[in-house]
């Protein structure tokens, strides 16, 4: 039998609304993510995927709606605040400092301090390098040295560093916005392997991708957004062709599982 806490979603977003001027980017979206689940978030351009995840990661404050973390109501006032509460976002453009090395990026903003002299903290380089090393090993990320500058890494390696960084501090949920968008085919496979590895190690993940085969390969469940609304929330199953047809039908508006609810509400 599962422990009780696993029945409570890690993240629950209820009736999230967000407007940008006249644009209704999110029109009342519900989303739940369960423990050790990979949730795929798909939808056409401008459907509201990034906005929804920016709300969850504290970058946007929603106009309406509530967010619960492990059943408790959460207030996320900015990205750092969300991060402290266990919500990690991997940004589309990696958000790494290319002039720093791998270990420095993994610990950026959370440096381990050895001695504190007033406002000046002396870093524990060795500790951070070792932690980074074992993190990369654990996630089977192939980077020869944690002292390599990020600018010398390939696109796939950079994405791996960005993802590793998001897992380094016991995150409750890891959000990835288009983690494969800028990558070569070989690098995409590595990133997807990494997502599977994270799931195997117990992480809960939300992944946005416009590549439906990525979602199909790694997700347990999938939510489709269309014009700021949720139109589908189903397990990922069946063969890839059938899956693709189904998703496209939702994306273009041919199918909509939540229409009645919207009309009624």
């Amino acid at each position, binding site marked *: 039998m599962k422990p009780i806490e696993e029945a409570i979603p890690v993240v629950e977003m209820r009736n999230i609304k967000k407007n940008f001027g006249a644009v209704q980017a999110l029109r009342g979206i519900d989303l739940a993510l369960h423990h050790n689940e990979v949730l795929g978030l798909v939808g056409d351009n401008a459907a509201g995927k990034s906005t929804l995840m920016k709300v969850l990661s504290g970058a946007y404050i929603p106009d309406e709606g509530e967010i619960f973390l492990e059943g408790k109501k959460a207030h996320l006032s900015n*990205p*750092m605040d969300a*991060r402290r509460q266990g919500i990690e976002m991997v*940004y589309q453009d*990696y*958000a*790494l*400092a*290319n*002039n*720093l090395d791998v270990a*420095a990026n993994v610990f*950026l*903003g*959370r*440096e381990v*301090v050895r001695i504190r002299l007033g*406002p*000046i*903290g*002396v*870093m524990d*380089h*060795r500790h951070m*390098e*070792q932690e980074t090393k074992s993190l990369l090993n654990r996630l089977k990320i192939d980077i020869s*040295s944690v*002292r390599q500058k990020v*600018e*010398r890494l390939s696109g796939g390696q950079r994405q791996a560093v960005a993802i590793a960084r998001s897992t380094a501090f016991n995150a409750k949920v890891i959000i990835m916005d288009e983690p494969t968008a800028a990558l070569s085919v070989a690098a995409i496979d590595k990133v997807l392997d990494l997502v599977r590895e994270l799931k195997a190690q117990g992480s809960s993940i939300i992944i946005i991708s416009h590549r439906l085969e990525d979602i199909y390969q790694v997700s347990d469940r999938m939510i489709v957004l269309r014009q700021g609304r949720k139109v589908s929330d189903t397990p990922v199953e069946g063969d890839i062709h059938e899956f693709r047809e189904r998703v496209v039908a939702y994306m273009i508006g041919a199918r909509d599982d939540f229409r009645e609810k919207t009309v009624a509400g």
Partner: protein
Amino acid sequence: MSFINYAQKMVRENIREYGMFIALFIIMMVFAITTNGLFISSRNLVNLVNQTGYIAVLAVGMTLVIVIRHIDLSVGFLAGFLGAVAAIAMVSWHLPVYVVIPMILILGIVAGLFTSFLVAQLGIPAFVATLAGWLGYRGALQLITISTGTIIIPNETFNAIGNGFIPDIPDIGILPGVHKLTLILGLLAITLFITNELITRRRMQKHNFEILPAGIFTLKLVFVSALIGGIAWILAGYQGLSWTAVVVLIVVILYDFITSKTVLGRHIYAVGGNPEAAELSGIRVKKITHVVFASMGMLSALSGILFAARLRSATTVAGTLFELDAIAAAFVGGVSAAGGVGKVMGSLIGALVMTSLTSGMNLMGIDISYQYIVRAGVLVAAVIFDVATRSQGK
């Protein structure tokens, strides 16, 4: 990997860092030959160090400013202005030197915070904000010296910062005419350096981190020790270590420590590398901007003190073109115009390069107009070198 291969790889990967040492070495050799050895005489080298002082401290501050993708054009006249304020404080207000120096440094910090307020809070490009500072401080300098002209500073303690030397230990019969305390300090520095390197290496080895091959490591120890020893020997042959050199060493060591070992330093480089990523990681970019400009202001004040002390006076044109020498020193020393890259040690070497050029060309009797053109050429060469080595590194 063989020794030679490894050495080649090291040079290739660190060409930016070695480049300026090579440049300095070549410049010194050329001047040594063209001045029949006059340039590398103890006396001239000691002078060179003292002349480098007021540019070097500016270059150290400028390094951090450029690292966070800004620039500060106001530092020269701010230094000149604050030097004049120091002179007035001692001459007209009769304040003791121990009050004047901290006061001037604090004024420098305030001036730096004023700049960072314009840059970080109001979003004015640093180029524009500090150009206004350049004009404003220049005007202020002329204004406070208009009635007096050059202000002679009678305070010997103050002037010693720019002209004096550390005292020697009493003569014990050996090495007459040599500044023994300087030699002892040199030996101490070598010992500290070697023990530190050995301890670090052993610790790295214990935790399975990559380390330099033994051959290269030994070479590095020998080279740096010889360099420190050589400099100490040359300085000891004249009057020893000057107070200016002591001040510069303290500044460089302090800033090197902050930039390489502390969280603050890490955050400064992160802001330079990717401000958005830094902000998303919880680093307050504005705060870093304030700290960096405040430090620049304080070092401008220090530069003004060193310069006024060296001239034993405050002049109406003090600080003219210091900003350009400091910026050039930073670029020659390996700071990247794109931000995020550069070390204070490098900028010290860069400052030495710039002052060597001035000093050497003066000794050769080269006309000042050619001197400007040569220095312009060196600056452009440094930036081209930067751009070329960056694109090659990718």
